[in-house]
Every structure is written in C-alpha cells, then in structure tokens.
C-alpha cells in the first residue's frame, strides 16, 4: 500500500515507530500531488521547501527520541482563507492575490506545534462564498469522483485533497455548510465544530457570527485527533469559549445502545434526491441495528434557516468586506482620479461576481427602510431556530439528516440562478444559525456512483456524543473505504 493512501492516525504511528522517515512520507504525498493535481486542481499554493525543512527538523528531534507531537511529521493542507505566516493567503480572490500574512492563524500555530507539516494552501470559493468552488478567481477544482463535476464548496479544495489522497487531512471553514457539503460530495469526513470551540483568529472573516474552522479527514478517528489539536480557548478571539480541555479520541467507541437519534421528519421533504433519501433511510436502519433508539423530532423552523442565513451572512459579509478598500493591503486599481474613485475601482476590479452579489444583498438588508423587515426579523427567526433545536435535544442525543439534498453537480449547472445553488445548503445552514456542531460522514453512493454524506448534529459543545455516533455509523458501514476514480465519468 502506498504511504499517501494511509489515514492520519496510521501514518503518525508509522513515523513515530520509525517504520518510515518523515521525508519518505513527504516524498510519497508530493509525488501523489504531482500525479493527481493536474487533474483535480485543488491547490493554489504548494510549500515544498518549507515542508522539507520542517521534515528535517522533526526527524532530527525524533532521532534524538524527543517528542514530535501527536501530528509529528504528518502533512496537512490548509484552506486559503486561513492565514499562514510568510505564505500567500489569497481567499481565491484577485483582491488578495498577492497578500502574504505576517502571522499564523491560531489553528495553524496549533497544528505546527503538534508537529504537522503544511503541504500547501487549497482552492475555495472566493471569500468562501459559494457551494461549488466555482467562484474561485484562481482555478476550477474538480471532484475526484468525477472530474466533470464540482467538489462542492466553499472548501472544495480542502475536501478534494483529502479525497484524492493529496493530504492526510486539511482545514476548512464552514459558514453555511462549507466543510460538510464538500465532504459529502467528495466522500470524506468533514467536521464543523461548535461556534466558539476553535479560535477564528487568522481566519479571514466572511460572516463572523457563523464562521467556524474545522477539519477534513479520511476517518472519524482522524477528525477526533485533529479536533484535539485545534480546539481550545484563545485570547485573540473574543468569541472563543473558555472551557475545560476534552480528549475527543475518548469518544471513539463503537456503541450507540444508550443513544437516542433524532429524525426531523418534517424537515426532510420533497426536494431531496431519491438516492439520497434511500441512503438516509439505510443510515437510520444501520444505527437502529447497532442498538440506537430512533426518535422523531420536530424542527418546524429549520426550513426558514436558508432565508435567515442569506440575510444574516450577507449582512455580516457586507460589513466585513468593507475593509478591502485598496489602501493598506490587497488589490489597488492602477488608474483613479481621487480617493473615492480608488475605492470604487479597486473593489469593482478586485471582487468577483458572487462576492459583489452578496455584498450588495447584505447592504440592501441593512439599509434604512429594510433593516427591520429583513435583518432584524432574520435575527428573531434565528432565535426561534435556536430554541427549536434546544427543544429537539430534550428528546434525543444526536440529530441525523442528510448533508445535502443532492449529490455533486456538473460545472455551470447553477449559473443561471444563484438562488438554486443556495438551496443546496438547506440541510447545512441550520447548524450554523444555531451555532451547533455537525459532521458529515460518507453514507453511500447514488446510481451514478457519486458520494452521499450523512450528517450528525449535537448540542453545543457536545462533540463527544457527536463523534461517538458518527464513529459508530462509520464502523458499521464501508463507504469510507472506497476511493475515487479520478476519471471523467458519466
């Protein structure tokens, strides 16, 4: 078996036991990238030089029998909206095409302290705005399961590199499903932790009350290991929660006998692809057979999450992206008459179509005359959705729904109507609106062989329960063992 195809847990063990050198591991992954990346186009930047340098340092430590950390020598990829000191961080936007941060995001610092090696930065929808990675200014990332289709988004690159064995794990960010949906489309594990569990310091802001960083991995076990490393309080993020340290790998128990799984029947309606529906019903059976109790729960307000989301997220985005003015950093237009003209030209030339659409939508819902009807009302509906989940969790431990109503679509399929693309987020946005943790686990394939994800949701800061149910589901299914074809199918 090739080294690159192993899991994060297995490769970390092999390195620590000195069965392989860290350089051999890097060689394997970079040669895999050389082979597959021309087809998949998932990386924006590769950082070989730094990676080999770090490998050498770590190997020396290891040879001296020093501790190199839980992720010692493990190559990992980072979404290109997470700041990496001295490495370009573009947000896949012309606006930040030449932006090189002078500090590390807290998550990057934590990963490196745990011994991880950064392989490169991954492609994404521009400023994380999109569900297909098509809005990237840099390149078009293909789905490793069918190169004529999208990998999902916005963290499409991060999902594709793990799916195609071009990294053992990666980091993404999830504002409305941007980790879970591409995980579902690419058949990998994608975890969006509770809002506040992971520091957002160094994550380039899209919608600050919804954004959360999380890992993509090949298995639930790897997700727990990654979470152990990146979770925790950070004084640099005032919305980071100060809680006791938890060992999430303790949750890796193949047992759901005392667990109640909530099924929101009123939320899973007609818009769903029949193959996804079938996979969902089978997932219910799998957990039932494993001893879980299945309980219907009511999420009557969840269907309003999408409208709520597109008001709140765009409002916050219009404010957050006000900082891109062509003055201190980022793109500045070449010709301008005065200061105002500099702002307008820099923003008009620097931002892509979807980003402009969202900035304008956000500006609209916040503008005088519309604020109460849209923004304030959306925040009130947000309260109803939060309460709705709280009530549902009085009757169950973990809620299970599909990650997305459909499987991956062809490039350009939703070009005509942005709203149609937004509807793909129906099952992921409620989790962000309520600030809850959610995880997508490989849950089957449709008739054409395209991956389907099953999503689990738990109470806030209850990742242990979440991971235990996800782990049990994974251990009682085999979908996560399948590898993508890397071909132009169907």
């Amino acid at each position, binding site marked *: 078996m090739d080294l690159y195809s192993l899991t994060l847990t297995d490769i970390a063990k092999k390195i620590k036991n000195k069965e392989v050198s860290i350089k051999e591991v890097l060689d394997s992954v970079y040669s895999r990238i050389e082979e597959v990346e021309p087809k998949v186009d998932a990386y924006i930047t590769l950082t070989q030089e730094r990676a080999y340098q770090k490998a050498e340092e770590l190997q020396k430590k290891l040879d001296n029998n020093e501790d190199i950390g839980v992720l010692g020598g493990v190559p990992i990829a980072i979404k290109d909206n997470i700041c990496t000191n001295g490495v370009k961080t573009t947000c896949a936007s012309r606006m930040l095409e030449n932006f090189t941060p002078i500090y590390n995001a807290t998550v990057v610092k934590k990963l490196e302290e745990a011994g991880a090696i950064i392989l490169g930065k991954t492609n994404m929808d521009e400023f994380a705005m999109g569900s297909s990675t098509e809005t990237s200014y840099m390149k078009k990332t293909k789905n490793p399961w069918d190169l004529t289709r999208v990998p999902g988004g916005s963290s499409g690159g991060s999902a594709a590199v793990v799916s195609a064995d071009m990294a053992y794990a990666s980091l993404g960010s999830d504002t409305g499903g941007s980790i879970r949906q591409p995980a579902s489309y690419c058949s990998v594990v994608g975890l969006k932790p509770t809002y506040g569990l992971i520091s957002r310091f160094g994550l380039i802001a899209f919608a600050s009350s919804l954004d959360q960083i999380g890992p993509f991995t090949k298995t639930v076990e790897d997700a727990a290991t990654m979470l152990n490393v990146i979770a925790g309080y950070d004084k640099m993020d005032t919305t980071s929660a100060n809680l006791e340290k938890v060992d999430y790998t303790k949750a890796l128990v193949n047992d759901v006998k005392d667990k109640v799984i909530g099924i929101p029947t009123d939320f899973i309606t007609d818009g769903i692809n029949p193959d996804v529906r079938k996979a969902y019903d089978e997932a219910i059976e799998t957990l039932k057979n494993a001893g879980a109790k299945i309980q219907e729960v009511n999420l009557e307000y969840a269907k309003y999450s999408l409208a709520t989301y597109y008001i709140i997220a765009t409002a916050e985005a219009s404010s957050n992206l006000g900082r891109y003015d062509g*003055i201190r950093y980022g793109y500045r237009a070449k010709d301008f008459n005065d200061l105002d003209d500099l702002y*307008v030209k820099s923003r008009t030339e620097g931002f892509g179509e979807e980003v402009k659409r969202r900035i*304008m939508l956000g500006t609209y819902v916040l*503008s005088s005359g519309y604020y109460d*009807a849209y923004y304030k009302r959306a925040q009130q509906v947000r309260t109803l959705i939060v309460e709705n989940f709280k009530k549902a969790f009085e009757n169950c431990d973990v809620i299970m729904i599909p990650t997305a109503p459909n499987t991956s679509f062809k490039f350009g399929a939703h070009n005509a109507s942005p709203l149609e693309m937004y509807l793909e987020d129906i099952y992921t946005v409620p989790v962000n609106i309520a*600030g809850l943790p959610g995880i997508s686990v490989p849950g089957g394939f449709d008739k054409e062989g395209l991956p389907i994800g099953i999503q689990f949701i738990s109470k806030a800061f209850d990742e242990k329960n979440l991971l235990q149910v996800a782990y049990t589901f994974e251990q009682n299914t085999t979908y996560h063992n399948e590898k993508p074809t890397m071909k132009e199918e169907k």
Partner: protein
Amino acid sequence: MSVSKEDVKHIAKLSKLSLTEEELEKYTNNLSEIVNFANELSSINVENVKPTAHILDIKNVFRKDEVEASYNREEILKNAPSKDAGCISVPKVVE
C-alpha cells in the same frame, strides 16, 4: 417587496462598486429573486422574540491593557499596494 434597478444603483453606490448596464440588469434580477425568497420570513410571528446576534453567552470581553511586542513595520508595509517613507501612501484627501 421587490428590488428595483434604482435600489441596486443605490446599494452599489453604498457598497463602493460600479456596475455596467448589463450587470445592473443581472443583479437586479438576482437580488429580486433572492429577496422574494427571503420574504417567506414575513409570514412568521416574531412578536416579542428577542433577536440573536450570536449564539454564545458572552458579552463584553475585557483584558488588561498591557504593552506587548507587535508586528514589524517593514513587514506590515510589504503588503501595502503603495508606500513612501515608512508609510502607506494614498491619494490626496484634503484640498
């Protein structure tokens, strides 16, 4: 409520974006479609419901005002699109 061309012109101005006639047409259609969809919220009774800004029970977070080492000026300026004499250079603002 639907979004008019005039609305889009106005919000583009507020957003410091300039649109071509073709883009104006396109965005007006897109935004109308999305806003019409968002109008479904108007059917929900939100009387006496408190708005949620974010889900954590955290208010004003304070820390001590302590002097700490900060970033290097030269390093910061490397990202500036135009600089002069250790400062970011901008077009003349005051006549």
